[in-house]
């Protein structure tokens, strides 16, 4: 009972993920600012933003469904936090079971659907436009991402993240065998998080704020939290699947290596958003179905042939 509460509220659960997400947001914004030769925000900035959003008035336009608009961020937050319980952190896996990778992937795609619904429920023009864009983007990145992420699972012969990490401990990190899969997974993750080169659903200069245009106050704060926690968990997942050879190490070394890998992935994501300009939605669909899907199928074929 006590240990269950500890897992839920403190270590892999709520508190740890919230702190990680705030740290991630600060690091990301700071790195982006430094790439652009700016100073960037101070370390407490994400926390101040979150508290401020919770202190503000809660408004919705006339005709919007308040109950659904309140439930959507809560549902996505709970889905993301639940996914966080199953993702190993530096090899620490309290709830691992066979097939948890599928559960994680399913739970991590709940916020995208809720994001689309949030756009439709809050009746603004830009919200609906952003919502339909987010759904289109979902169809473009999700298929190559899922095919790419099944590469490590096929290679280790198991759908459990812990098992994948153990087999990496004996074979070496999977990024050596599946570099293309890793790149595809990073691109898919950028699409999933709606980060800068693929921030088509919430492009400020095109659709104002995307599906969240009409959201204020605590709901907006919850959405911010969901996005950041999703980013942190996505990075943790990629670290475990492609660089997760630390399972058999001494725990202290594993923690240090895990943090270094996390930081490297954050630098890759921020660098991508600093370098590349936003794609159009048709360019993204073309990229997804003409380039990423065939590449991911090739990668899977290569993995299967290597297994034989």
């Amino acid at each position, binding site marked *: 009972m006590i240990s269950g509460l500890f897992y839920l509220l403190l270590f892999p659960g709520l508190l740890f993920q919230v702190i990680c997400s705030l740290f991630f947001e600060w690091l990301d*914004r700071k790195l982006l*600012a430094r790439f*652009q*030769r*700016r*100073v*960037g*925000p*101070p370390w*407490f*900035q994400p*926390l*101040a*933003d*979150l*508290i*401020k959003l919770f*202190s*503000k*008035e*809660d*408004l919705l336009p006339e005709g919007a469904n308040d109950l659904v608009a309140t439930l959507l961020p809560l549902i996505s937050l709970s889905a993301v936090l639940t996914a966080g319980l199953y993702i190993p952190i530096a090899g620490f896996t309290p709830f691992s079971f066979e097939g948890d990778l599928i559960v994680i992937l399913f739970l991590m795609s709940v916020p995208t659907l809720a994001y689309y619904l949030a756009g439709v429920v809050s009746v603004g023009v*830009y919200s609906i436009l952003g919502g339909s864009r987010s759904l289109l983007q979902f169809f473009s990145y999700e298929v190559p991402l899922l095919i790419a992420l099944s590469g490590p699972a096929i290679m280790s012969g198991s759908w459990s993240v812990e098992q994948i990490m153990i087999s990496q401990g004996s074979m070496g990190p999977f990024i050596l065998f599946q570099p293309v899969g890793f790149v595809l997974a990073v691109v898919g993750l950028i699409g999933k998080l709606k980060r800068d080169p693929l921030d088509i659903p919430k492009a*400020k*200069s095109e659709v*104002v*704020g995307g599906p969240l*245009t*009409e*959201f*204020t*106050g605590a709901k*907006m704060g919850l959405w911010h939290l969901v996005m950041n926690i999703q980013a942190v968990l996505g990075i943790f997942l990629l670290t475990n699947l492609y660089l997760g050879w630390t399972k058999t190490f001494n725990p202290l070394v594993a923690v240090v290596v895990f943090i270094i890998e996390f930081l490297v992935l954050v630098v890759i994501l921020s660098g991508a958003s600093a370098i590349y300009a936003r794609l159009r939605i048709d360019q993204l669909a073309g990229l997804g179905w003409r380039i990423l899907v065939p590449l991911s199928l090739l990668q899977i074929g290569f993995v299967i042939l290597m297994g034989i």
Partner: protein
Amino acid sequence: MINNLIKKAYQWAQKKSLWVIHFNSGSCNGCDIEILDLLTPRYDVERLGIVVEASPRHADVLLVTGPVTRQAKDGLWQIYSQMPSPKWVVAVGSCSSTGGIFANSDTVLGGVDKILPVDVYIPGCPCRPEAVINGLLKLQERISINGDDRPENFAKRD
């Protein structure tokens, strides 16, 4: 005690995280370009927690440039009323403070304070980016001293 603590935390957060929306109510674009300068690496206001937002629903501070023309009056009021409280208004430039050189024109109502309660006036034609940053810092000071001291239910004036 706890209420007081929460109030203090809210006040601190509101002071440290001002999200800004920019509205041009009839400006010559001089002040607008000076506001754009705030985002450049030279002046970088993100180090003070100030971010320019596109939607009024996400914003805390309304930066108004230019005198209020008869045409822009309703739009200005609508943008202001879409913002969630606590919210603040900053008049950027001489024109939005007093009407400037357009003060006696038929098509111009005057400064922003004819329509909205203004918290900070930033003079200058156009005002320098340093002046805008100084005005926003003055607003932060004001928030940390007075908190949310806007008049409730500020009525629309014609």
